[in-house]
């Protein structure tokens, strides 16, 4: 790695973080009330104390499990509906208003309605699914629209069967943009699940611990849990982008 790349890829982000932490320190010192704004030291101390507790990992596991399951169901249905829409214009037009309503529906309305209709253990799944599904449907559906029309014509000229067209043309054409969309949506799924857990008071969850920290005015612990949620989001986004890089290298010859 040459000097310019080190500066851009490592030093610049570190400098940004350092400025952020410095402002945080300064603000916390100026306010001087830990309940309102604990210092970064207190927050990191809280975070490290969480690392030693079994319930921390259990909560992360449950929240992550809920996010991933809701995401997978939403993603699978989004792909299925987008493909159905590609194969049938009638289906596409008929489903369009539903997709639009789901997309513009205020998230808080979804959350409040679901809290009335479902038990607290189920609500986070439903909320995450309902918010993610229209986003993913749009991502996948747009990806089917942006395929290379010249290549599509080639598949027709060379008499590709429907199966071959889907698996040798549409899927490979769509995967790069879908994986980019997935990386962003997956970390959003974690944020949504946590919000739903807070409001539904779901047991054994990051949301529940955050809710408790807020109720007991343990602001440093609330920030420590927030830090854990940020790291989890980073990790998921990084993992998907890593998968994307491997896929691009392995199947698209991007070396």
């Amino acid at each position, binding site marked *: 790695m040459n000097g310019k790349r080190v500066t851009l890829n490592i030093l610049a982000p570190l400098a940004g973080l350092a400025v952020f932490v410095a402002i945080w320190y300064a603000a916390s010192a100026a306010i001087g009330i830990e309940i309102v704004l604990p210092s970064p030291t207190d927050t990191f101390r809280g975070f490290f104390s969480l690392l030693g507790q079994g319930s921390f990992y259990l909560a992360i596991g449950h929240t992550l499990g809920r996010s991933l399951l809701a995401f997978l169901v939403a993603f699978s249905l989004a792909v299925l509906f987008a493909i159905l829409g590609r194969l049938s214009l009638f289906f596409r037009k008929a489903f369009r208003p539903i997709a639009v309503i789901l997309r513009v529906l205020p998230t808080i309305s979804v959350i409040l309605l679901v809290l009335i209709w479902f038990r607290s253990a189920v609500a986070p799944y439903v909320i995450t699914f309902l918010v993610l599904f229209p986003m993913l449907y749009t991502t996948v559906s747009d990806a089917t629209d942006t395929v290379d029309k*010249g290549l599509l*014509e080639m598949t027709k*000229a060379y008499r590709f069967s429907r199966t071959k067209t889907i698996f040798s043309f549409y899927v*490979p054409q769509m995967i790069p943009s879908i994986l980019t969309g997935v990386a962003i949506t997956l970390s959003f799924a974690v944020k949504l699940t946590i919000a739903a857990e807070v409001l539904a008071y779901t047991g054994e969850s990051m949301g529940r611990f955050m809710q408790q920290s807020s109720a007991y005015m343990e602001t440093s612990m609330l920030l420590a849990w927030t830090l854990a949620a940020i790291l989890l989001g980073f990790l998921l986004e990084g993992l998907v982008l890593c998968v994307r890089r491997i896929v691009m290298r392995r199947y*698209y*010859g991007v070396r």
Partner: protein
Amino acid sequence: MVYDDVANRKDVSVIMEKRDEILIKDLSVKFGENVVFSDFSLSLPVRKITCILGPSGSGKTTLLKALAGLIPADGFSAPRASFIFQDHRLLPHLTALDNLAVVLDGKREDRRLRAKQMLDDMELSEAADLYPHELSGGMAQRVAIARGLLFDADLLLMDEPFKGLDLALQERLIRYFVKHWEESRRTAVFVTHSILEAILVADKIVVMGKGAHGAEILYEKDFDLPRSARALGVPEVDALRSEIHDLLVSL
């Protein structure tokens, strides 16, 4: 063989294959109000190369697309045809080898074996494991030509496949193409803007123009001088070249 199920079609009426010619009869194609073909007829000699010349907008590409069934039409079953496009149109996620194998049917290993054989024949062995973006423009176009020749079809359609390439490369690719075409001798329709290209490869030359009621044929000529004898300076070649040149300039 008669493609009789096209008789009821409104925009492409009849395409028939007789013993020695494929006859396109009463072809009509419209895009909205724009009439591209109206009762257009053309005979393509079987197992020979027909080159089509003509100014832009005269319907050359539309003719190829109609023949390949790429223009939407109810009740029309286009003959199975290979199509070599102006650009290579290789799938970006597949290597050159797999871009050839993907147009074949059958077991994967057999398809790849046939594809490899074709790449070897076209002197493209070194490109087999490369992706399209790793190939030079000329090489990618050669892979696309190889794909067109490998695809199992009686009709071979080519839409200015050598356009935009430098002259030396064009000449090499034409040589490759003719060499491999000689082995299969499929009925070929070759659209080009280059008079010389047409004269070097054609058994029949057609010049199309745009008339008041869609495309029309302005000139048709069978050219049976052996390909090996065709070169600039040969009287027949020069005479034909100037004849077609004068016609095109007058349009």
